């Protein structure tokens, strides 16, 4: 029925030389994925949910100080440590390499959050809430998570499904650029490239071959599908 070529391997390349650390990606993600508005208390307790986060790292001493600000989505590892430990299979890696959380099955044991060396999985400590009318801005494509489950970046998987449905209904293949996560779409400097890493003609594949490329905690063997291009 659905004749398929080899499945794409979705990946992301973040060019730190372009990035201005504006955090547009962070807010774009929160708006797209119905992340509940953070509160002062939650922020003080380290409970703000940011699927896409800006990770600050300041090194050195005055005046030779270097600050690196890394936009950090889920790495969507090819060898994800989180999946191995889930007792109920609530987190899975799809054929196209996207690591997904099934909120309806998650039992909230938070083993995956601890197994993730990037600490990029988040937990719903309370029932998510929206002050008064703010909840009207919720995106219908993404479910609102209940309390007590883990959530994480999905590479805006719902956008992939919508794009793929559209392409199928029109009887064609998914085109490059048709599926882009909210963070990449919102980036003012186009520092975030997204596409099929296995497609040699794609922009991400080309960028991932750059000499500037590195990945986070590469030595752990998690094989992240998010690549960074260093400055300079």
């Amino acid at each position, binding site marked *: 029925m659905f004749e398929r070529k080899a499945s794409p391997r979705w990946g992301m390349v973040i060019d730190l030389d372009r990035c201005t650390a504006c955090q547009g990606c962070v807010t774009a993600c929160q708006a797209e994925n119905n992340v509940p*508005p953070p509160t002062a208390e939650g*922020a003080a307790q380290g409970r703000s949910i940011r699927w896409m986060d800006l990770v600050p790292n300041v090194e050195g001493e005055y005046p030779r100080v270097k600050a690196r*600000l890394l936009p950090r989505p889920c790495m969507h590892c090819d060898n994800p440590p989180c999946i191995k430990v889930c007792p109920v299979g609530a987190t899975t890696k799809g054929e196209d390499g996207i690591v997904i959380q099934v909120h309806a099955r998650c039992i909230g044991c938070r083993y995956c959050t601890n197994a993730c060396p990037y600490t990029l999985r988040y937990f719903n400590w309370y029932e998510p809430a929206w002050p008064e009318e703010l909840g009207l801005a*919720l995106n*219908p494509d993404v479910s609102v998570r209940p309390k007590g489950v883990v959530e994480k970046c999905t590479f805006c998987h719902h956008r992939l499904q919508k794009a793929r449905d559209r392409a199928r209904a029109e009887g064609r293949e998914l085109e490059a650029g048709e599926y882009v996560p909210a963070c990449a779409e919102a980036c*003012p400097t186009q520092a975030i490239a997204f596409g099929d890493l296995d497609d040699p003609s794609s922009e991400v594949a080309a960028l991932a071959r750059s000499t500037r490329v590195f990945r986070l905690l590469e030595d752990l063997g998690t094989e992240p599908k998010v690549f960074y291009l260093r400055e300079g």
Partner: protein
Amino acid sequence: MTSSRRDFLKTVSGAAAAAGCAPLLSCRARAAARAKRAEPPPKGSPESWIVSTCGACPGGCGIRARLVAGRLVGIAGNPLHPVNRGGLCPLGLAGAHALYHPDRVRGPLVRSGAGGSGELRPATWDEALALVTGRLRDLRERGLSHTVALVDGTRGLSRQVAARFLASYGSPHHLGGRPWNDLGPSAPLRAMQGVETAAVHDVENAAFILAFGSGWLEGAASPVGAARAYGIARRGRRSGRVRVVHVEPRLSTSAARADEWIPIVPGTEGTLALGLMHMVLREGLESREFIEEWSSGFEPLRAIVLRDFDPETVSERTGVPVATIIRVARHFASTRPAVAIGDARNGPGAQSPATAIAIHALNAVVGAIHARGGVLVPPEPPLDPLPAAPADEVAARGRSFPAISAPDRAGGDLSALQAWLEGGGAHPVYLLMSYGSDPIAALGGGERVRAALRRVPFLVSFASFLDETARHADVVLPDHVYLERWQDDPTCTPRGFPVLGLRRPVLAPRHDTRHAAEVLAQLARGVGGPAGEGFPWRDFVDVVRLSVRGLHRSGRGALFDVPDAEAWVVTMETNGWRASAFGSFDEFWDGLKARGGWWDPLYDFGERGRVLRTPSRRFEFAPLAGALEEHAPRGKAALMAAAAVPASYPLRLHLYPLLAAFGDSQGPLPWVQDVLGREIGESWSTWVELAPSDAAALRIEEGARVKVESAWGSVEARARIYPGVRPGVAAMSMGPGGAEGGTCRRALVAQAGALAALAPGRAGSARADTWVRVRRA
């Protein structure tokens, strides 16, 4: 950790006394504070997209609003808009929260308590309008129309409508109250080029950027536009990667993104610029062509700079090593094109005009004026002017009074207003309207500013949120938020191309609010006389339609289109053809609505007359030379004296902008609040950054509660030890201002208050010379 332990002890002791239900009760209180769970619109609801223009800050980005089941469920960038090309910053992306914000003003408010008490009660539009109209009519009839002032934070037609209102009514006091990153007339352009517009820096084409002051990326007039240009200059062009050197007392985001960060003593950027100029001149690296053919009055400046600004002196004053000055000067002058960027902000913490002029002069010396990769002067879009405002003798008389305005001061009109109200004015102000502006917050807030504003017996605010001014107002006539109104948004791209964005409602107004420009027209009609006749239009859309006819008629430029179409327009226009067939005006109008606006991707480097409007038709170095000459008798000694450290306040206060803290026209949005100081891990608090050595000397630990005190006041903050702060400097971020209270408001506001407390009413000069001390609270 300590706080949670304290909580624990508190709870345990309380619990020991109480019965078993105590914890349930305490949680119920928490529940009341928390809001309800919400659900997205039902699945399968039809969706639509509306193209509009963001209004969260003056950046002028294009947006697409996603509507499902009558709800605004998302905002994305408009990929056709030449300013942002689909990109957006956190403020723009959180726009839906501005629309649905719980703190919005839901209808007209009228003061119920004593003046300045901030007690307001809901009223009907009829009542509120009658109140204001009555006052206006009364003043006009008594020949006091000149005692009415209007602080205006808008631009484009909204500004013209306000100007019309005042012209027909009879008041000369049309004051600028721009948000602090708005593109406004730039002081150096006015002084040295005789041009009353903003300067833009062609970052996209520059090979070397020397940025002075705080955050040229996060504090830019259009943060997204600047970021986009930066991205292109770094990696998006064939001509190679731009090199960026950033001069600032603090390792800001911009500084972190630069190739080199030069920590400098706050407020001495102008001195450094002159020191660099000294090296450029001494090594003969200046642009002789520009100096000889385009400028006048250079020789006196050369003499002063060569005499007073040798690297040793400058190094001592600015704290920048001599070797760095020499190296950067050589690099700057020998790389083409290179551009020096000053701090575009206005308001508290802005660079002084003298500094801006020095930096502009540095650009001129290397020929980076009106040149590719240099400082550009964007042309105005060819809009049709509104017909002349009718006036009678009352209006004429009123307008003949001297105006409260000081366009060449850094704080701009608002500080002039403050001075005027504090007793320096020729006559009292009996009625003040704040329109698209929050003058109290823009002046830094604080008791002194509030007291000055309280001298105005009748204060009218058009705020959508209960900002500081609105809280003190006698009548609040709430405006729509930008997602609910029609508006034009004239701006430009970093390459100097004029842009006219069209803002249109994405949803019907949620609350009982009215378009402020239409309310002004209504007030005018209520007053009667020529003022009433000046507004024959049904609504503001008609005004916009009238104005954009000029674009249609000119045949210049093009509707927004994909990036590839730009080359086509340029080719056609440079060959003298019309690039676009707009068709009829209605088709053009529909195109504007569908694409989001109009632009003209052409910058004519030939038209010198447009950018040099001084009497000599040349670039004038004289203003800078003149300013320096004033200090000349004292020479080096004067320069050195300023660096003395007051004994009781050993730290300089450095105020820096945060991108997400823009937009004083809306309430703080939780998502935006949460990303505020991410680089240092602070978001919902007021914090002060100290260098590790200073903190050690003061025995202040990371995260300690401290008091920051200046000669004028003090404020509490959390101490953060940050190696990216120059020793001897206390760095604080600029909040957007606004009042306390409300659902989502938090310490962000306190940050703005901090400035007020530390340097009350000293807008514009706060950064250079506010000295503080920090001690444990």
